[in-house]
């Protein structure tokens, strides 16, 4: 039994003062010694509780053991066995509520840094190992599958189906693959060349990626099925921004987080005018919301040169859904939090540009359906926050296009598509779905897990065909 070591190996990071003005990755990653030190803290518990905390069930003690033994290829193999995107998940998984939450060292306050080790192994493999490590797919089955949407759900489904020998076409509406991984999550948290490497891996398996292809506008799902595809997987995510419906919302300077992040990440507005897509940012920016999207927006705004950036959230710090690590990073970078605050309306100038946001103070009442205490408006508490840009980061719902153009799909009142939780099967024959389109905004790893489960179910279905 190894000695209990409660000292988590800290993650080297760019200094807050420096990083708040650049888009380079914040967390720099462990070096060999740090990774070894952290890996050696794992107790190799016989009951392996951590595995149950991972939505895709990675053999966590297994890969950590291989890492401590210096057997990097084996560590990488164990990761890839369950997770086709380890370099991404190691960076963006909310580990504190998943694998690390149930690590036996979590109680004494220092869980093994599983995500950081996963990142270390995946980065090692991408940078050092021969990239010819793509497995050879099984013999072609002659079956064709259309995967719609190239976010984590679609990428995972496409990769697994290709490995099983099926011919996969991956349709993507945008001009690059990756979904939220490219247009939402910023470069400083998830470098885009890492996402591209994962996409290259998927296409190296024989998956044909068709960009600029909006299913429902070009072929519909039904047409894909009549045009030779034996099955369809829908991984189109939840890309429709939720707005507030309060006065002044359409003023200039009021962005949805999706527009703001798309301009910054997908169109590289931070390199304007070298890249031609502009972004108008002011000195005082308010970001409304308390999730990952709000943190990303706020941290992009500070990097764009804003002087004051406020995160305006209607509950208190404890209820914020954002990853803890990113909240800490944001605080270090000088983002200011206005808790228990909710917007009432936006005020504009004569040019229809936003100049202020009238807010209510809130207090917390009884718990609501989500189990969190419900925020209630304090009467006559209105005050005005001077801002010249507002970013609304309240979440997203699925784009209605797929549901509207596909006969026989079942949707909920939130616009999500109904699918079996374990198989991803929808009520429509030959159609599976998974990821944010089914759950609403969730996590990268859960979307990926849904893609993998659906791939397995599709494979079983295809094997039964003649």
């Amino acid at each position: 039994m190894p000695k209990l070591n409660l000292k988590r190996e800290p993650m080297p990071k760019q200094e807050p003062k420096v990083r708040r003005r650049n888009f380079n990755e914040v967390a720099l990653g462990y070096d060999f010694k740090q990774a070894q030190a952290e890996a050696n803290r794992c107790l190799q518990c016989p009951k392996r509780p951590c595995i149950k905390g991972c939505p895709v069930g990675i053999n966590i003690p297994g890969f950590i053991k291989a890492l401590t033994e210096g057997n990097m290829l084996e560590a990488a193999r164990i990761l890839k066995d369950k997770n086709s995107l380890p370099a991404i998940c190691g960076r963006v998984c909310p580990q504190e509520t998943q694998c690390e939450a149930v690590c036996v060292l979590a109680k004494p306050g220092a869980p093994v840094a599983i995500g950081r080790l996963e990142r270390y192994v995946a980065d090692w493999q991408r940078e050092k190992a021969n990239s010819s490590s793509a497995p050879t797919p099984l013999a072609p089955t002659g079956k064709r599958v259309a995967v719609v949407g190239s976010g984590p759900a679609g990428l995972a489904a496409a990769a697994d189906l290709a490995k099983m020998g099926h011919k996969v076409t991956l349709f993507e509406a945008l001009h690059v693959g990756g979904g939220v991984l490219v247009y939402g999550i910023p470069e400083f948290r998830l470098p885009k060349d890492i996402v591209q490497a994962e996409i290259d891996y998927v296409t190296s398996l024989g998956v044909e990626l068709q960009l600029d292809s909006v299913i429902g506008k070009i072929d519909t799902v039904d047409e894909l099925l009549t045009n030779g595809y034996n099955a369809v997987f829908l991984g189109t995510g939840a890309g429709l921004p939720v707005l507030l419906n309060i006065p002044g919302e359409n003023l200039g300077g009021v962005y949805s987080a999706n527009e703001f992040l798309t301009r910054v990440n997908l169109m590289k507005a931070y390199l304007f005018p070298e890249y031609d897509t502009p972004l108008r940012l002011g000195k005082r920016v308010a970001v409304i919301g308390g999730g990952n999207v709000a943190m990303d927006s706020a941290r992009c705004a500070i990097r764009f040169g804003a002087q004051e950036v406020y995160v305006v959230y209607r509950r208190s710090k404890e209820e914020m859904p954002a990853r803890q690590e990113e909240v800490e990073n944001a605080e270090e970078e000088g983002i200011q939090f206005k808790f228990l605050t909710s917007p009432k309306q936006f005020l504009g100038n004569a040019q229809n540009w936003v100049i202020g946001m009238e807010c209510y103070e809130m207090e917390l009442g009884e718990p609501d359906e989500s189990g969190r205490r419900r925020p209630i408006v304090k009467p006559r508490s209105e005050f005005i926050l001077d801002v010249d840009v507002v970013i609304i980061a309240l979440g997203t719902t699925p784009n209605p296009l797929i549901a509207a153009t596909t006969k026989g799909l079942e949707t909920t009142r939130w616009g999500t598509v109904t699918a079996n939780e374990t198989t991803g099967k929808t009520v429509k024959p030959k159609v599976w779905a998974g990821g944010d389109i089914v759950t609403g905004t969730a996590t990268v790893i859960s979307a990926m897990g849904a893609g993998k489960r659906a791939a397995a179910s599709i494979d079983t279905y295809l094997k039964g065909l003649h």
Partner: protein
Amino acid sequence: MYKILFKQDLVPNVHLFKIEAPKVAKKAQAGQFVVIRVDEKGERIPLTIADWKQEEGSITIVFMEVGTTTHRLALLQAGDSLLNFVGPLGLPTHIEHFGTVVCVAGGFAVATIMPIARALKEKGNKVIAMLGARNKDLIFWEDQLRSVSDQLIVTTNDGSYARKGLVTEPLKELLESDERIDRVIAIGPSLMMKFCAKTTEPFGVKTIVSLNPIMVEGTGMCGCCRVSIGGVTKFACMDGPEFDGYQVDWDLLLARQRIYLEEEKISFEQWQSQHGISLDDV
């Protein structure tokens, strides 16, 4: 990559490309648009589908040089390619047998109105077309438009060709005449559409306009293109681009179109300096 099969300079600042895009051509309908990107560093911009040929797998677009992207486009020739070309986006024009429909085109929007007028004609409508331009040199496709309409009225602001004045004048006269008008479709610069709607409003004739707010991706995921229709926020790329002209909040549309004026100028000046072109040349 999407190959330019054919290029035609229609009038000095307006060009036509026929582009190879079979998937788009298979589904295109009147009133829809595409989003294009010239190269890796380029902006995504929306352009209306002016024509399509399924057999050939081609889409025709007509564009006016206004800023960086459209100037860069104008330098391309047949045989060159665009990096990205997505469509057909937006809802198609609602076409049915209405009776008599007036199709008003302002400037280069004659290209936008062509497929709509043709589809209306095919459905058995009487089509009265109106074409307004600043001057004679900016008029193109007059004969084509005439070929899909029962009557064509042309105006120029300076009187250098046909009737002198704005299109709203013959439009008003027509509404005042005995002719029964069932619908008006007005497409062109925002101000022209606004005044067409103001002209028809007292007569209560349903008036459809095609809005052109700034867009980013064009598939309903960013909300950049939001417009206010009857007090309700809509996304023009997904719920439009055509809307009831009486319901549009024109001031908001005009204000949102101006958001990036300063950046557009910076971008254009950089482009000009890199290409050794001065403002006087363009």
